[in-house]
């Protein structure tokens, strides 16, 4: 489909062309006709008043060809020429009034009048008359010719202005958050666009409904799963009370399975909560340094159990204060992931430092790294890059990413340059939190 701008331009150009050409042609012919009759009147006036004029020798002398002038001849009643221009002896016309005469190879316009005593004949060359008429006609048509491009430019400017307003509308649409629930404002929108806007708003509403329903479903399903999981967990615990050696091992396996399912349910719930951008976000005032320390402290026991050296290094004082308690979850998930992927005897460093205006948190592990092919998908829900023997739900990084996104942080996971593990990096622009 041709763009609106192009369509309008083509039509305006064609229209301006037709109207302009018509106007120029019409004004040319009208003015030329007018000039003709004006010159005729002039000839007649000269004929009526000829005779008592100044002699040929009157000063100043003409500097141009007399041929361009009007030729006046007067005869008396007897037919004797009283006045004539020597080189132009146009034969006396028998018929009075206007006539077209051929003389000396040129066309002439002749007016002859007589009062009985004298006959005056005034002549003018057609070519001169035509030139005069053409000049007058061109003078009349030129402004129209000049007006056409000006009108064209003005129209283009107006169209561009109009389309820019549409562009603004589109930009406002493009910048909307996926979770924005409010309808697009009808202000500053041309009334012609309003129906489109209304249809869009309706679509947004329906889409939002579908998203809400889906999230509610995930949340409800996870909540519903909690009760049977709780029952399972207690039953496993009961089993343990009465178990002996060989059974204990099987019960531990069973317990591991129940726990894993519980973790998955918790993460699903967290994911559903994060997807609900409108969910009441608790306004907190948390020091980033405390969050980092807490994320480490919470995992010290697990790390020790796995014989992984988890610690802080280069812990810089950033003085960044954050408002979203879920940021703790983001950091915890990164540390948790690092512990999962780091074999016994490995090291995990959590680094907090400044980088320009940003605060930077890095979790550097000495694990197995991530295959390059898997890197683009690591934030996908339920995607797991790990070897099958490493437990996980595939939601940890997806949750971390969701938290990062809703706070405007940049979360990057990359392999270490020395290929001895992974660096998870969160870049926290200090200003994002100040704007809250």
């Amino acid at each position: 489909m041709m763009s609106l701008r192009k369509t309008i331009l083509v039509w305006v150009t064609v229209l301006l062309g037709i109207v302009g050409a018509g106007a120029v042609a019409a004004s040319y012919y009208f003015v030329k006709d007018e000039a003709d009759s004006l010159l005729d009147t002039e000839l007649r006036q000269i004929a009526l008043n000829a005779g008592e004029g100044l002699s040929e020798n009157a000063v100043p002398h003409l500097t141009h060809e007399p041929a361009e002038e009007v030729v006046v001849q007067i005869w008396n009643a007897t037919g004797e020429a009283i006045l004539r221009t020597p080189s132009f002896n146009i034969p006396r016309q028998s018929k009075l009034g206007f006539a077209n005469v051929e003389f000396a190879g040129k066309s002439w316009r002749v007016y002859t009048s007589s009062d009985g005593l004298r006959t005056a004949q005034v002549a003018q060359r057609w070519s001169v008359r035509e030139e005069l008429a053409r000049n007058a006609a061109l003078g009349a048509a030129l402004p129209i010719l000049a007006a056409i491009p000006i009108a064209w430019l003005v129209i283009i400017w107006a169209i561009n202005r109009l389309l820019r307003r549409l562009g603004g509308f589109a930009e406002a649409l493009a910048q909307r958050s996926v979770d924005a629930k409010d309808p697009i404002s009808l202000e500053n929108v041309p009334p012609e666009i309003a129906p489109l806007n209304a249809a869009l708003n309706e679509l947004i509403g329906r889409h939002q409904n579908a998203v809400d329903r889906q999230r509610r479903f995930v949340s409800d399903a996870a909540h519903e799963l909690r009760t049977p999981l709780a029952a399972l967990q207690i039953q496993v615990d009961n089993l343990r009370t009465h178990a002996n050696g060989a059974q204990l091992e099987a019960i531990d396996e069973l317990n591991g399975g129940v726990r894993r399912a519980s973790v998955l349910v918790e993460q699903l719930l967290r994911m559903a909560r994060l997807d609900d951008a409108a969910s009441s976000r608790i306004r907190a005032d948390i020091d980033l340094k405390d969050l980092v320390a807490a994320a480490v402290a919470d995992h010290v026991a697990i790390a020790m159990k796995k014989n992984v050296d988890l610690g802080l290094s280069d812990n810089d004082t950033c003085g960044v204060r954050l408002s979203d308690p879920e940021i703790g979850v983001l950091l915890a998930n990164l540390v948790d992931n690092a512990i999962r992927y780091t074999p016994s005897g490995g090291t995990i460093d959590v680094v907090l430092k400044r980088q320009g205006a940003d605060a930077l948190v890095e979790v550097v592990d000495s694990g197995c790294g991530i295959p390059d092919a898997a890197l683009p998908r690591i934030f996908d829900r339920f995607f797991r890059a790990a070897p099958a023997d490493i437990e996980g739900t595939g939601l940890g990084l997806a949750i971390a990413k969701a938290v990062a996104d809703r706070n405007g942080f940049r979360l990057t996971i990359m392999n270490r340059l020395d290929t001895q593990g992974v660096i998870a990096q969160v870049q926290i622009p200090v200003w994002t939190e100040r704007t809250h």
Partner: protein
Amino acid sequence: MRILLIEDDPMIGKALVRGLGDQGMTVDWVRNGAEGSAALACAEHALVLLDIGLPEMSGIEVLKAARTAGALVPVLVITARDSLDDRIAGLDLGADDYIVKPFELRELLARMRAVMRRHNGQAQSLLMSGEITLDLVTHQARYRNTEHTLSAREFALMHAFMQRPGAILSRAQIEQRIYGWGEEVESNAVDFLIHEIRKKFGKDIIRNVRGAGWMVVKSET
């Protein structure tokens, strides 16, 4: 000890009756809010385990009715909803604590003990976290199966840790807590104290966090 369990889910109900029974408790199990309210009115139980998600009369309503009627029995709420609003609603209505499904039996038992202790007015004298118990009156500490009386400095150190289990304390923070103003602090005093405590209870009682400091673990993970 006689416990009232108000829970509609048969699986959880049966498992809890058995699990708590194994711990020597007598459990009266009712399956809906109305019966629960009636049982509460008898005031025969030492503790009530109340599920919030009951059909018809919800746990919240049962709790509200009981507290309005002046029942003083400690109530531990069991909930599948863990949003802050749900938790605050429960506590505001007079629940003594809450536990979110799914949970392990020993965590429930620990919460029940804590609620009972608080209710009997013993709470102020004991700090507990995970496997560590610190008696503020007798300066006795218990970790796993060892129990010792602490020296004044050792107690000050453990007290600092136990006030915020799970938080890392730096050397400077520890020194600030256990030494008064103007007191001479020897450079390795903290290391020495920690060494002494570890010698009594085992290495794991205080965890070292590289680059940050020391901590005690909040609860067993």
